């Protein structure tokens, strides 16, 4: 394996995106096929990444190292471990349905649409594969530009407000992360994540660094109370934008906690873990209630995303409570495993749900729950898939949603009964808002003329949703391969997270 696989995964979609842009709207047929080909090739190339991955080690694999900016020792350094590999794979996997879903639907400036998603795919893979924090930041910020345009150009009526809010929120958070990164660079002498992780830092330093990271990642996850950009962005974004936003972009926040906050500021993480746990529980419970009252399908799924991402942060930070409570690390890895599986699962499920809403929206041009009812009568195939994804969203055993939530709740029990009890309310709340959505939209008698004239899924839509359904079920009944890939890295991460970095 001498191919620079990760570089190809990053730059191939970007190059293809630029090519689609150059082809322009006039050659959109060629452009579309090129976009599809590029996203499929990227997905195919992610397969050897998975199959050649050595699950026995926590070390970074498929490493690449080139001099980038010698002036301040920032290198073009790539690599994946068990934490980033599944996310890279998820990114490669989710871009294909987005391209297919936009095939006919996007009539306005289609070339830019496909180009934006391809370029974004490359940048997002770059975020997960970067082992140099400056390179990470480079991709992390660059990715905002295509998303800003996607929401702003193809979004709904309040798209300008939503996209500006999205950009400013995330930019604000990120700038302070950059400030923290630079601080560590000044101390460490280079920008590699590994040297930040081994850099001794006093508790005071760690606290500030932790808070700077928290600002950046909490906005991205998003955690309560900095979540307000997400419902707006989701509602206004076009279907593809919502899918990528929910499936991948939110995961960057979770990834940031795992890659930066815990290993770089372990003592501050231990000290402030209650803060993160509390915010996570607020997300799970309060946002769960908020989701219950939504009138707009996309908004409901957006709030559901926030609640589900609460599990990710809970699972990641529960490790300290387990340590103090049980005195051992048994079960600590469980929480992290749960967080990771939850991220992958939520990526698939929420992406699929947004695609489902997109299917309805393309036909009826409304996202209001009240505009539907009895969809099952006219769209039986669609109803099956939608119900499946909704059940996965509630965490039904046999679907991917179950694995992640179960692991996190299990870990919470080891930490504290109350955490587990509060986290467990999601089983009720999640079921309530999701199933109520299903009841109002899918079941019941045909509500109105629009619903009566609905056409069931065409081949293109069936293919997309079917593939996602298979992925959701496979991870649900057989999560072992995924857990296997993560195991060594998660153990290593737990060790890093509990080892003090305060210089003696």
């Amino acid at each position: 394996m001498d191919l620079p696989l990760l570089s190809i995964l990053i730059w191939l979609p970007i190059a293809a995106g630029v090519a689609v842009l150059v082809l322009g709207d006039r050659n959109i047929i060629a452009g579309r096929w090129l976009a599809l080909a590029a996203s499929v090739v990227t997905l195919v190339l992610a397969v050897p990444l998975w199959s050649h991955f050595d699950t026995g080690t926590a070390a970074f694999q498929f490493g690449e190292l080139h001099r980038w900016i010698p002036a301040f020792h920032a290198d073009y350094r790539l690599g994946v471990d068990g934490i980033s590999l599944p996310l890279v794979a998820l990114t490669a996997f989710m871009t294909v349905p987005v391209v297919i879903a936009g095939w006919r639907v996007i009539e306005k400036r289609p070339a830019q649409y496909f180009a934006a998603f391809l370029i974004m795919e490359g940048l997002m893979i770059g975020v997960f594969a970067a082992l140099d924090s400056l390179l990470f930041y480079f991709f992390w910020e660059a990715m905002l530009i295509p998303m800003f345009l996607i929401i702003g150009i193809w979004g709904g009526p309040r798209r300008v407000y939503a996209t500006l809010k999205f950009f400013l929120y995330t930019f604000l958070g990120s700038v302070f992360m950059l400030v923290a990164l630079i601080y560590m660079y000044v101390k460490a002498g280079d920008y590699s994540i590994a040297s930040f992780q081994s850099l001794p830092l006093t508790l005071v330093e760690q606290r500030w660094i932790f808070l700077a990271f928290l600002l950046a990642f909490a906005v991205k996850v998003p955690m309560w109370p900095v979540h307000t950009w997400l419902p707006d962005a989701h509602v206004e974004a076009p279907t593809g934008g919502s899918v990528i936003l929910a499936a991948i972009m939110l995961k960057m926040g979770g990834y940031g906690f795992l890659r930066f906050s815990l290993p770089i500021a372990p003592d501050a993480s231990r000290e402030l873990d209650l803060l993160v746990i509390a915010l996570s529980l607020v997300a799970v419970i309060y946002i769960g209630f908020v989701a219950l009252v939504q009138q707009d399908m996309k908004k409901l799924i957006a709030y559901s995303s926030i609640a589900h991402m609460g599990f990710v942060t809970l699972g990641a930070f529960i490790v300290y409570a387990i340590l103090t409570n049980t005195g051992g690390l048994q079960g600590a890895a469980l929480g992290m495993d749960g967080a990771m599986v939850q991220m992958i699962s939520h990526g698939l499920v929420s992406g699929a749900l947004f695609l489902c809403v997109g299917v309805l929206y393309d036909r009826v041009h409304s996202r209001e729950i009240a505009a539907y009812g009895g969809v099952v009568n006219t769209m039986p195939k669609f109803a099956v898939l939608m119900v499946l994804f909704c059940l996965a969203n509630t965490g039904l055993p046999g679907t991917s949603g179950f694995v992640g939530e179960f692991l996190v709740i299990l870990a919470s029990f080891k930490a504290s009964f109350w955490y587990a009890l509060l986290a467990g309310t999601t089983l009720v709340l999640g079921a309530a808002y999701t199933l109520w959505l299903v009841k109002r939209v899918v079941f019941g008698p045909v509500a109105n003329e629009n619903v009566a004239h609905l056409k069931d899924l065409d081949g293109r839509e069936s293919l997309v949703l079917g593939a996602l359904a298979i992925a959701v079920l496979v991870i649900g009944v057989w999560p072992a391969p995924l857990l296997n890939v993560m195991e060594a890295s998660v153990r290593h991460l737990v060790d890093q997270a509990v080892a003090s970095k305060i210089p003696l």
Partner: protein
Amino acid sequence: MPFANPLTWANIAPAVGEMYLTFAVCAILMVDVFAGERRRGLTPTLTLVALVIGAALQLQFGAVRERVTLFDGMFVADELGQVLKLAGYLFLAVTLLYSRSYLESRNILRGEYYVLMLSALLGIFVVVSANSLLTVYIGVELLALSVYAIVAFDRENPIATESAIKYFVLSAMASGALLYGMSMIYGLTGTLELDAIGAHLASPMPLGVILGLVFIVVAIAFKLGVVPFHMWLPDVYQGAPTCVTLFVSTVPQIAYFSLVLRLLTHGLDGAMQAWSQMLIPLAVLTLVVGNIVAIVQTNLKRMLAYSTIGNVGFIVLGFITGTPAGYSAALYYTLVYVLMVLGSFGVILLASRTGFEADELEHYKGLYSRDPLLALIMLVLMFSTAGVPPFVGFWAKLRIFQELWATHHVWLVVIAAAASVIGVFYYLRVVKLMYFDAPAGELPATARSSVRWALGINALAVIALGVLPGPLLDLCARLFK
């Protein structure tokens, strides 16, 4: 006193740029006089050729292995000066390239414009190479006088004339302050030579030096457009013909950078603590005022003026660090910033037509549907100026942050970070107008000239230097080793 160095070519070769430009100004002035109305296009072409020749001469003869002083210590030649002069040639050439069709379409393509540009460049070169208070002053004045005239050269335009007068009056006061401060320094140290002033500065600093320093800092703040000495800047940017604004906002930045460098960090290096303390509140004010006031502007030129003020704040932050690494960050910021502003005003020039100035933000509504390429170029430039990767503007801000951290200016880091977040908003608004809004009414099509290629290359440079920032960063770091 006999000359220590006889006037041989080897001894004066490093001053080739200044000598050549003096000659070129005279020659082109003559050619223009005799070319007459019919050969109007001769002067612009000739000026461009002159710049290319100048750059070649500079490369051939201007290079110096190490720092040398000429003309009894009045003049210094070093690698930094060499780079700045080459940058001056390049930036001016780009400016002239962008402005030609604008001048033609308004029927104001006159020789003075080009001659004055060259004499301004000569002034810039003199500042760059100054090693004596006197040389500094001569260079600054030559530059300033040329710029007043350029701002007013479209004499039919009352707004331009008004802003030229405003600029002249205020700038004359700044020049006075500069001269006054210099005289105090001279009186207390007994020397004009910048190399020698440092040695004569006693410690503890006499109060007179501090007082002189105050006047010098005020003058510098005025030239740079630092708040609260920034009043002239928005008016001049908005009032001057756009091709002049393009010049005023770009090429002289080299001189202003050198002015700070030669005067403060070299001559008055010993008083670093003092001037750095003076600059801190100015920089904070500049960052805050520039970025916040830019938000409420409705005129793009005026918005970019406040954006310049905000960005100057960052350059000043680089100097506040008081370290060579900080100065190199300021140099990098200056070069990068000029590159981006060249493009931004280039877009305004291209979007304008005969009888139509595309200077209101309104005019950029739906630019995408009228001219996708121009909108894309502007998008790149706006995101870059906002400091968003993968564009080069990000690295400029990063360098400043790095050096501020390295010198433990925690609060300045936080304020600069907050200011750059505020700044993002108004750059995004331009993108929003171009990409998200529908065109407002019928606006004339944008110019289809060969300048588009130059503008495209400008934007590509912003991207390329953003993805691979190494070489330029290395160059800037090396100049301050």
